[in-house]
């Protein structure tokens, strides 16, 4: 790691030529977390300013094209990825209003009660400083906020909670075909719970089932921040500014005092605030903290940037004699199987668990497209495959428990971006356990495909999905960066609201938990404002 601090002390920065009017809270990042905190604080009467580096996307900008969808991704050139199992960064990050939320697939799953204390239960990985019961009411609130569809009763593995406000999306042919395989092997499935509308809700239309989740749902059926928390935050009085690149969190005498940023014309500013909230996802947040002070701000634990973790990802494919209509339905999944969610090591083979996201709709191109399912094919063989697969392919994705290690980390390089901030390196290796889990899932996945009647079945490459950790939460300042509410142990008026606070990742997609956790954190901020602001 290099010495990241470019400027001098916070006091010197305070003499910046263009200081902006102080606010109650400045929030960095306008994704789910940033817009949720903005909404809650603005509703509590606070003057809130949200600074976002990317464009001011509107739903009308979400063009139906896998080619155009790439401009929605963030972090380009700001991070390097290395290791035996490198984190896929470019595909995961967002950019602009809505953050990664505008291209995520909206598979929203609750973590199970046993996921929150795997250290205590099994002596493995880390405990969360809160339990399922602490999050349960916020899961319930979140699913009402965005309008979730699903069948809580059919999800036999689901922890207790309110039923979904909307019924499941209709099952498409490729989901129905794959379900045969699960049924034949005695594996239970349920409709996949999704932050996608199956019926009109709060003035938004139901999903058209055309599979444009990745390029951004322009009709607003998918509950991304553009159609949920951002307009509500604005209505409550929060201000959002785009094209703003925050360089550092400023601090004086053990408190955060604001942020230093560069606007879209290259002018440097200081924005003072009573409270600073970093909601810039799991990678930019530790990059900012490490760039904010010698040795990193809020880093007395030395853990800022450490414990980056991801999910193990594996895609299974099958070709079927009948038509699958793989272009129909949501991108993320139609059905869910969590039969192997349990982390109990007594089951043998590996620790942790996985879920199957069944019946993922496909477009021809892009990283998760039909052509990438057979990356070995070229020329006429590729064309023959494309024409066959468009009518007869079905697929499902494994999301599995990842590796939690302090050695998987983000550090700063000497190389700098256009604004002078150090580029970050993300290093990640899976342990043998994650590979053993993928091996087991691969074998089961092929068996399911054949049981479903596939004439050919195969798996894609082992990969990673979702990015968590880097600023983990915990009860003790020596072993964590923030509290269970995201308050940094070192600076009481500096908060973090990203999946970077997750000490472990379970084996479910993290967005639902991120949203619920942020609702809880924002409520804490409003109730205890006088204690730290």
């Amino acid at each position: 790691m290099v010495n990241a601090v470019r400027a001098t002390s916070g006091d010197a920065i305070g003499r910046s030529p263009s200081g902006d009017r102080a606010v109650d809270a400045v929030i960095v990042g306008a994704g789910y977390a940033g817009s949720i905190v903005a909404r809650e604080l603005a509703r509590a009467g606070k003057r809130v300013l949200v600074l976002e580096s990317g464009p001011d996307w509107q739903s009308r900008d979400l063009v139906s094209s896998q080619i155009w969808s790439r401009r929605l991704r963030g972090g380009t050139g700001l991070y390097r990825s290395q290791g035996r199992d490198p984190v896929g960064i470019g595909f995961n990050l967002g950019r602009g209003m809505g953050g990664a939320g505008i291209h995520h697939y909206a598979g929203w799953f609750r973590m199970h009660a046993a996921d929150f204390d795997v250290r205590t239960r099994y002596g493995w990985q880390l405990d969360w400083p809160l339990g399922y019961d602490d999050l349960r009411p916020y899961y319930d609130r979140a699913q009402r906020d965005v309008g979730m569809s699903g069948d809580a009763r059919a999800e036999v593995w689901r922890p207790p909670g309110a039923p979904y406000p909307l019924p499941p999306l209709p099952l498409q042919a490729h989901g129905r075909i794959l379900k045969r395989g699960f049924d034949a092997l005695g594996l239970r499935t349920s409709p996949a719970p999704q932050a996608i509308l199956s019926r009109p809700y709060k003035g938004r239309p139901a999903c058209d089932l055309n599979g444009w989740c990745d390029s951004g749902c322009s009709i607003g059926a998918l509950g991304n921040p553009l159609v949920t928390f951002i307009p509500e935050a604005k209505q409550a009085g929060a201000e959002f500014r785009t094209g703003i690149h925050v360089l550092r969190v400023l601090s004086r005498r053990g408190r955060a005092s604001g942020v230093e940023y560069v606007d879209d014309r290259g002018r440097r500013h200081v924005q003072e605030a009573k409270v600073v909230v970093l909601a810039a996802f799991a990678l930019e947040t530790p990059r900012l903290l490490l760039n904010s002070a010698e040795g990193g701000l809020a880093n007395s634990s030395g853990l800022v940037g450490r414990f980056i973790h991801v999910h193990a990802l594996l895609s299974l494919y099958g070709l079927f004699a009948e038509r699958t209509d793989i272009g129909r339905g949501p991108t993320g999944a139609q059905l869910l199987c969590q039969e192997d969610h349990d982390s109990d090591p007594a089951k043998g083979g590996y620790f942790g668990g996985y879920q199957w996201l069944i019946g993922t709709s496909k477009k021809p191109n892009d990283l998760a497209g039909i052509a990438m399912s057979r990356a070995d094919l070229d020329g006429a063989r590729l064309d023959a495959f494309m024409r066959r697969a468009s009518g007869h392919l079905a697929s499902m994705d494994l999301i599995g428990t990842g590796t939690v290690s302090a050695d998987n980390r983000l550090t700063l390089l000497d190389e700098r971006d256009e604004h002078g901030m150090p580029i970050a390196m993300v290093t990640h290796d899976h342990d043998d356990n994650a590979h053993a889990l993928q091996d087991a899932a691969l074998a089961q996945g092929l068996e399911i495909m054949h049981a479903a009647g596939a004439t050919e079945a195969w798996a894609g490459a082992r990969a990673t999905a979702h990015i968590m950790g880097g600023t983990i939460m915990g009860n003790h300042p020596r072993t964590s960066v923030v509290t269970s509410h995201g308050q940094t142990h070192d600076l009481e008026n500096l908060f973090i609201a990203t999946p970077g606070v997750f000490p472990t990742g379970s084996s479910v997609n993290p967005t639902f938990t991120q949203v619920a956790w942020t609702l809880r954190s924002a409520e804490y901020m409003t109730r205890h404002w006088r204690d730290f602001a």
Partner: protein
Amino acid sequence: MRENITRKVFLRQAAGFGALLAWASLVTVGAPPSTASPSSAEPPAALEWTRTIEAWCDLLVPGAADHGVVDFVTTQLAKKPDDALLGIRYFDWPPPWAGFYQAGANALDAASRARFGVPFVMSSGAQRSDLLDILSRGELSWDGPPFALFRLVTRGDAIDVVYGVPAGYAHIGLPYRPQIEPVTSW
């Protein structure tokens, strides 16, 4: 472009869903003079690599040349990386990316010369297919970005222009059903 300044670039694995291969951790590639795409103001040498890329993409995905793969690549290389629509951004390869394409094209030419005595664009269709097979098996020296990544990225570009547009959907019998139809393909 081999005579251009070279620099050491940490090459990270092709990550995300596409993590297919472990690449060398440190290689040397030709660095481009700028991120600008070829234009009439650029020397002929700068255009040469686009002809190689075009022929190569057409080998990987027949029709890529006619469907404008060079226009796609060069127009995107001319944009700021944040706005570029190239699939390479998913492989966490650091921008600017023109050097990636140029170095790959140069490596293809060198391999073709070594094998057949002619640059890639001068080789026959059969020779090009042979070269792809040989390079895929790692049986010929390759002095460029990791071959597997180069193939994956350029194959993706070709797939974008052939199959990722409404006409391509129609070709394979997949209804496009846009919510908002793109005004231009890229």
